[in-house]
């Protein structure tokens, strides 16, 4: 056992000497390799954590939301629909929701304005999310200026700021009273943005939805399961930016492996010949090549994953802020709860370590099996 350990250590020694002969190149390779792993691992951590938080935060979302569509676009729904929908068996409650978007030209940010069900916001007052407070530099008691649709300026006082921990759901929220909402948007009375339904028995959801779609063909019911499924497929590897990123990363891995796999240079072949002539067996040479590949790829994997974890869970994935923010001005500050997905990390490990190590070992097979006396004859 000790002999085996010593053997491996000696060979690792020489593998490192070998790598250090081209220090610049190999260090650059390690750095780039680490960066690629870092990017992929960051995405894995970020997406897993986000999905989990979505599932937990939205578990009390409405059972069903009914929207009205006009020419395929979302339109305000008459509250009167609610009475008839409430009569459907299985529906235990109908709550018309009033919510919409407001564009604030002062900072260029979009806010979500919402009228809470429990009428907890006083007239001419607003409760704002901490993201809004941050962007507009507001504190409790300050006044917020809104421009209503008919051109008038409306001043509303900030009654409360929502806690910072709720940024992920409420960063851009502005909770407003119903009268203020309707006045601001000239929102017609008797209309609501959509209807939120309470359906006690989840098995009845499909039936109820079918009935609603039947009775009101101009509406679109959205089930809670569908809402949550949106977040299951968020940042899906198969779509948009993610597929590009994955493609680039795979290409990087292929390029690294290719560099190793395209045969050995004459000098490398000569060196293997020398090793064989001084008493190294084929197995020893292959082990040496294995360690050369493993040292680089293992190190890159560990550095990349550790850095990615710190990036996502200690620094709130700040490097992703720019692409995620896009053109938006408001971006939530949040601390994700750490989630480690062993399956995806294992896949990343195999992607990182195996092809590169194999690409280092295989091409040297030929040279490694050469006759030891070949070095003498050259």
């Amino acid at each position, binding site marked *: 056992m000790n*002999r085996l350990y010593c053997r491996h250590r000696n*060979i690792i020694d020489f593998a490192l000497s070998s790598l250090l002969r081209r220090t610049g190149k190999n260090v650059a390779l390690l750095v780039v390799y680490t960066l690629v792993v870092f990017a992929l691992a960051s995405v894995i951590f970020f997406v897993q954590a986000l999905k989990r938080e979505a599932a937990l935060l939205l578990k009390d979302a409405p059972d069903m939301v009914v929207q009205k569509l006009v020419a395929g676009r979302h339109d305000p729904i008459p509250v009167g629909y609610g009475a008839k929908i409430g009569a459907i068996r299985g529906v235990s409650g109908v709550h018309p929701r009033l919510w919409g978007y407001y564009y604030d030209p002062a900072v260029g940010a979009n806010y979500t304005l919402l009228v809470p069900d429990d009428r907890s916001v006083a007239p001419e007052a607003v409760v704002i999310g901490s993201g809004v407070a941050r962007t507009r530099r507001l504190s409790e008691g300050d006044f917020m200026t809104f421009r209503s649709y008919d051109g008038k300026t409306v001043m509303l006082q900030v009654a409360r700021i929502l806690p910072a921990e709720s940024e992920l759901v409420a960063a851009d929220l502005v909770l407003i009273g119903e009268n203020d909402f309707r006045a601001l948007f000239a929102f017609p009375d008797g209309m609501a943005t959509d209807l939120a339904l309470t359906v006690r028995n989840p098995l009845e959801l499909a039936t109820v939805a079918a009935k609603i779609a039947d009775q009101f063909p101009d509406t679109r019911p959205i089930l809670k399961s569908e809402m949550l499924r949106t977040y299951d497929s968020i940042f899906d590897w198969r779509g948009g930016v993610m597929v590009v990123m994955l493609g680039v990363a795979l290409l990087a891995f292929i390029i690294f492996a290719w560099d190793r796999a395209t045969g050995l240079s004459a000098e490398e072949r000569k060196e293997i010949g020398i090793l064989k002539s001084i008493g*190294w*067996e084929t197995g020893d040479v292959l082990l040496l090549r294995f360690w050369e590949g493993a040292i680089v790829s293992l190190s890159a994997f560990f550095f990349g994953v550790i850095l990615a974890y710190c990036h996502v869970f200690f620094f709130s994935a700040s490097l992703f802020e720019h692409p995620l923010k896009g053109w938006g001005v408001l971006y939530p500050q949040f601390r994700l709860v750490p989630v480690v997905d062993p399956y995806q990390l294992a896949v990343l490990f195999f992607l990182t370590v195996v092809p590169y190590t194999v690409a280092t070992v295989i091409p040297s097979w030929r040279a490694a099996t050469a006759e*030891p006396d070949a*070095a003498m*004859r050259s």
Partner: protein
Amino acid sequence: MIELARVTKRFNAGRANEFTAVRDVSLTVARGGVTVLKGPSGSGKTTLLTLIGCMSRPTSGRVVLRGIRTEAVPAADGDGIEISGLPERFLTGIRRSTFGFIFQQFNLVRGITVLENVMLPAYPTGEAYGAVRTRALDLLERFGITRHASARIDLLSGGELQRVAIARALINEPAVIIADEPTAHLDSALSRDFMAIVGSFKAAGRTILIASHDPIVFESPLADAVVEMRDGGVIHGGSAA
């Protein structure tokens, strides 16, 4: 001692460039002495050295090692070990522990230090690093090149490289030293130095085998047997099959 019985080595058998390097050679290398293979280039000296040193296997004929103790093959075979039929793994094991090679081109690894070069043959054996390192440093000291221990070999002179190669050949404490044209890159003074070192090996009881066409070597008083070769065959000094 090492016995060769009707050994033939053919390269590229069956192809257009088939070439017989060693033809029907029978030879006995005595233990503890200096045997010199003499002959012009192309006479098969180098190939014969590789056959004796377990570096390659003969196309036909037998190579037998007798009375040479090696840990690689535990069975104490009174009749000697026939190495011609052994699989590569055993062959390498025997070679590593029994033979030390000094190549004509030195065959040192570029880009690593002298010390590491000397220790290299012992790496895959799994021997403890500390012990190997001590031995390597002792060897460097013995040949007066300790000050170069951490230097890259690119910076050394021919004579110094020669001594590094010798040190490397001795790292596994072999019973037999094999040198191929050791004085080819050396001037007369250094060549005589080399023979002095050979003398010290002989005094220590090792068997030495040198292939050379340098008179300083084959006319040296240290040479116990001179085997003359030409065109792959022994013309003088061999033994009957």
